[in-house]
């Protein structure tokens, strides 16, 4: 199968959906000639014109509001917030408006809005441009949260997100836009709420999403050398969550390591751990281990930056603490 970059997969998804549904449009900062901060929209302004590729002033709350208003009146906007760190300027619109409108209005209105953004550390862009904030959105009823790791997943899930009738937080990771991965030529979509087993194994379940899938794969490779067989579950969508897939893997392996780049305190990782503890306590042969970011603003210095987020070695260590072979 051909291999394409993650950002190219995004672009393909957008093009396919814009071609098949004239109600789909793009709105955000520097998405015109600039093609978006990570160039995922390269050339789209030429293809669709400024009516469907709306390049806005630096007005994040109004970008989301524009998305909501258009969604309420028949369109399917994809609103882009350049860094997840800037969603801080839009939380009222995302949380009090987009997420709640359908419910609050007794299903009178609904908001088919995709909010594309990206997070994560690794580029030396420091504390205000490197956060992993998915836990916030995960905590808000009414939002779906999608965090695809591979080119295949990002394409299929973005198409599903665009077709969804309710708001979707679509969170990418700044370190993987240039990763290449297999993507079929034919059209496909990926349903929400269906985890993907990124590697099958017997001894321990590793739950990981977004860029941490790759760190986990690396760790699993290492651990294999010591005869430890890891099963890697990538939920792909945090809301809805394929909890069955996690539980059934844990029932098989009896052990769970939960990995997340976000700061450990109050992370999604904790939530997964709590859920598994409550639902599969009797199948656990060891305490659940969490491998997550340190509770720190991300430092600029590269060594410190790297030290504040998980690496394969941290996952290896955690696995070895609960798997004795």
């Amino acid at each position, binding site marked *: 199968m051909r291999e394409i970059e993650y950002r190219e997969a995004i672009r393909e998804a957008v093009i396919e959906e814009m071609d098949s549904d004239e109600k789909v*449009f793009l*709105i955000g900062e520097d998405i015109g000639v600039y093609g978006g901060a990570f160039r995922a929209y390269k050339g789209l302004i030429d293809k669709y014109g400024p*009516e469907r590729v*709306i390049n*806005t*002033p630096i*007005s*994040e*709350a*109004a970008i*989301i*509001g*524009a*998305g*909501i*208003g*258009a*969604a*309420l*009146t*028949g*369109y399917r*906007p994809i609103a882009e917030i350049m860094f997840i760190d800037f969603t801080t300027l839009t939380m*009222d*619109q995302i949380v*009090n*408006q987009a997420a709640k*409108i359908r*419910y*609050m*209005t*007794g*299903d*009178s*209105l609904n908001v088919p809005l995709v909010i594309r953004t990206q997070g994560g550390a690794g580029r030396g862009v420091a504390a205000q441009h490197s956060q992993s904030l998915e836990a916030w959105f995960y905590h808000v*009823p*009414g939002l779906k949260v999608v965090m695809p790791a591979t080119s295949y997943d990002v394409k299929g899930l973005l198409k599903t997100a665009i077709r969804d009738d309710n708001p979707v937080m679509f969170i990418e990771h700044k370190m993987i836009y240039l990763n290449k991965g297999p993507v079929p030529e034919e059209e496909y979509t990926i349903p929400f709420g269906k985890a993907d087993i990124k590697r099958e194994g017997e001894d321990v379940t590793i739950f990981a999403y977004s860029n941490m899938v790759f760190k986990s794969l690396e760790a699993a490779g290492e651990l294999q050398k010591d005869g430890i067989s890891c099963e890697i579950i990538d939920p792909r969508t945090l809301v809805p969550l394929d909890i069955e897939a996690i539980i059934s893997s844990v029932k098989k392996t009896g052990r769970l390591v939960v990995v997340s780049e976000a700061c450990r305190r109050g992370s999604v990782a904790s939530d997964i751990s709590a859920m598994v503890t409550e639902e599969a306590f009797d199948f656990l042969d060891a305490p659940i281990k969490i491998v997550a970011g340190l509770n720190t603003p991300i430092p600029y210095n590269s060594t410190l930056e790297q030290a504040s987020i998980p690496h394969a070695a941290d996952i290896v260590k955690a696995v070895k603490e609960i798997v004795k072979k």
Partner: protein
Amino acid sequence: MTNISKEAKIEMLKKLIEIRRFEEKTVQLYQTAKIWGYLHPSLGQEAIAVGACSAITGDDYIVSTHRGHGHCIAKGANLNLMMAELLGKATGYCKGRGGSMHIADTELKMLGANGIVGGGIPISVGAGFSCKMDGNGKVVICFFGDGASNNGVFHESLNMASVFKLPVIYICENNLYAISMCSRESVACKNVGDRASSYGMPGYIIDGNDLTEVYETVKKAADDARKGNGPSLIEAQTYRWGGHHPNDPGAYKDKEEADYYKKEKDPVVNFKKKLMAEGIITDRDIDKFEDEIKKMIDDSVKFAEESPEPELDKFLEEVKQI
């Protein structure tokens, strides 16, 4: 307003009275604890809702606020469904989930009240994009208060609407107060309407208690918007008769000023007088309208009271789908 039919004028008067009586009733129901939570009556501001909504068509959108009953009624909302919602009933506009601050109606192109001050302003931008893309001359009215005009979303939204020449009419109901904060102290320039110049759009500062003036100004702004000339900002000056909500005595308000507005600037009374002076209606007509409206409102209360509460089991099922 010379080119308005007698019938239309009478319709407007009826709407004014309908809002007035509806709000009076909700305050009463609040005081007897049939309605709870937050209730923000629009008493004294009726002419803005009616003047504005009469100047647009049923296909045009409105975006409302926490003080939104008047906007709903002026846009044609069903009183039964409104009242049922205020009583938290399953038959209400929001199935009892939203209450006063979240009423919406797709068919009426009523994009929702809002519990967040200014929260609807960015949404109007999107509705504006949508009208523009549809290309069939629809417009959006976005209501908000003087208090909201100091929030950041006001700025972002008006700027963006103007940059893209969106067909949105921004109507600031300057009722002099945001809870206890007087707009003379919170708005750093003289008039909210002056802020239009920051966005390269026309600004109008009008007497919001004068239905005719509201109607004509909105009509003009809507015409401009439909022609592709972009948004306008209208500051409709009015007065919040009551406290911020029924439990607020409004002790911070100037008593003389309050009296002045109630006595001299009552939008319902003044429009009534005007139509009488024009010979369009008589005292008897008014009595008739009042009776009809009283019945509608009593019926709505009856409907609401007799309506079932939302079912708990259903709620628990629905929650799983969120």
